[in-house]
């Protein structure tokens, strides 16, 4: 249809009920796209089907309807083109840190010599700051270190796209910050295309080029797509000096707190077209008074300005 790097068209997922009939879809009519080198975050409450969408992108799950097209080809089944970082790190505890990464590298390049694989893995492990721990067993690592191994494993196979399923969810705030920095660094260096699930608004603002906001499930939809218009060279430390930061943050929090429940195609959103979900740029709109107002109608006025531009 279009020349997007990846496009999701009309995705729908329904689980059969106990008596075998098709249940209410968790989500339906999901449309969005990702460009090459873009970092996309998806935010939404639990139960809106974020992880399912990620799994469909990864090819680990099949959607009930709709297609995912990447590079002009439909995604069917998992592939080395799309690296996945799992929520629970998913390291294999019977392999060393190096072994885990090497397992992935060997899968991608089966012909490589042992030495070449080891060198390649070491490079990526050093990139996430684990050069000193390559011969350790996963059980000897802290949660943050394990997740870094998971990230290194995903990067090491140099996938066309990286899928991250809330990778820092289980980490304490301090560790999370450090790893976010590292991820940011690596992504900026490699121009990796990334699709990431997060619950953390700051994380999304720090990392993403755009944020997909999901309304609540069942029958969840893409409510809005928020462009993060802040310059790309963000840092965790300096980000909140940018005036855009608060506007974007308020917009996202406001959505999560107030609007995500009612957004599911209610009557007041007549203009809503699921094929072209509204794209907003709250960072560029100077409505310091409106941004904090907990009014469900006001964003609609904003919306009208930006819809279909």
């Amino acid at each position, binding site marked *: 249809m279009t020349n997007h790097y990846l496009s999701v068209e009309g995705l729908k997922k329904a689980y059969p009920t106990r008596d075998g009939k098709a249940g209410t879809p968790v989500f339906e009519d999901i449309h969005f796209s990702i460009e090459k080198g873009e970092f996309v975050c998806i935010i939404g409450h639990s139960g809106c089907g974020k992880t399912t969408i990620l799994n469909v992108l*990864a090819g680990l799950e099949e959607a009930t309807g709709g297609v995912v097209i990447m590079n002009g080809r439909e995604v069917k*089944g998992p592939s080395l083109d799309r690296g996945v970082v799992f929520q629970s790190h998913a390291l294999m505890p*019977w392999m060393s840190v190096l072994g885990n990464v090497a397992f992935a590298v060997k899968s991608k390049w089966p012909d490589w010599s042992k030495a070449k694989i080891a060198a390649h893995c070491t490079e990526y492990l050093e990139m996430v700051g684990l050069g000193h721990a390559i011969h350790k067993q996963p059980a000897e690592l802290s949660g943050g270190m394990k997740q870094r191994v998971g990230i290194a494993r995903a990067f090491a196979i140099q996938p066309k796209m990286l899928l991250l399923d809330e990778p820092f969810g289980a980490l304490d705030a301090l560790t999370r910050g450090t790893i976010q920095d590292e991820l940011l660094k690596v992504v900026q260096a490699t121009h990796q295309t990334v699709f990431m699930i997060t619950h953390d608004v700051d994380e999304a603002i720090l990392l993403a080029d755009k944020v997909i906001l999901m309304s609540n499930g069942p029958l969840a939809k893409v409510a809005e797509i928020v462009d993060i218009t802040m310059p790309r060279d963000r840092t965790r430390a300096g980000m909140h000096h940018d005036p855009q930061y608060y506007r974007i943050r308020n917009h996202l929090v406001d959505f999560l707190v107030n609007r995500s429940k009612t957004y599911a195609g209610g009557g007041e959103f007549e203009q809503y077209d699921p094929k072209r979900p509204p794209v907003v740029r709250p960072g560029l709109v100077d409505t310091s008074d409106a941004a904090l107002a907990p009014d469900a109608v006001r964003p609609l006025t904003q919306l009208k300005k930006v819809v279909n531009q």
Partner: protein
Amino acid sequence: MSTNLSFRAALLSVLLFACFIGIWHLATLPADGGAVSAADAEYAALMGQGAGKAEGFPTPAAVGRTFVHFLSDPFYDNGPNDKGIGIQIAYSLLRVGAGFLLATLVALPLGFLIGMSPLMTRALNPFIQVLKPISPLAWMPLALYVLKDSDVSGIFVIFICSMWPMLLNTAFGVASVRRDWINVARTLEVGPVRKAFRVILPAAAPTILTGMRISMGIAWIVIVAAEMLVGGTGVGYFVWNEWNNLALPNVIFAITMIGLVGMLLDFAFGVLQKMVTYRD
């Protein structure tokens, strides 16, 4: 602290053993039978009196002498029906080994299949449920009839009884491999063989080894019983042969050896189990 504890435990074990031997000794002190009436010395001789014949339950000393006697020459061979305990244990271990190996060759792949496929699980489940509770020795007559060879039948019985714990544990272990690990393998487009050996097998190995350890325990119990039944060679035959002579010290000796070998087998599998167990 922990060395102190194990030292105290060892001391207590020794003490308990000493108590056991002491009570045994007291309980089997020869009753004062009175002097043999010299009037019928021939009758007494025919009854074995004075010929070092032990009366009643053997004393610890008598059993101790038996241990020394058998262990001092464990590999003698006085013909097909009288071999040293070392040779007999070797025969039993060979049979158990053969049956167990066969069971492993069948149970692991089949367990994999069952564990991976809900369809196979359901299809095979009724058979497994019916076959599993059958006493291994109940197979013996059927095996003898069909296989027409007692050695092969013995091995078959080991095979069939080793099978179930291994099969079920393998199936369970494989079925409950963490989804994430499977997904990692899938996203890496790992081929089925590599996935089986590098991901599923190591992931399920602790569970599988537990099954194998249970199987080995059963196999060792069963081989002794089977050899008592079929005879010829093996430690079970040794027990039967000594029981046929109503030689209790020898039977006690054999029972102890069976226990020790069983313990060593279990220990060996414990070590293996530790080797494949991973910390998460």
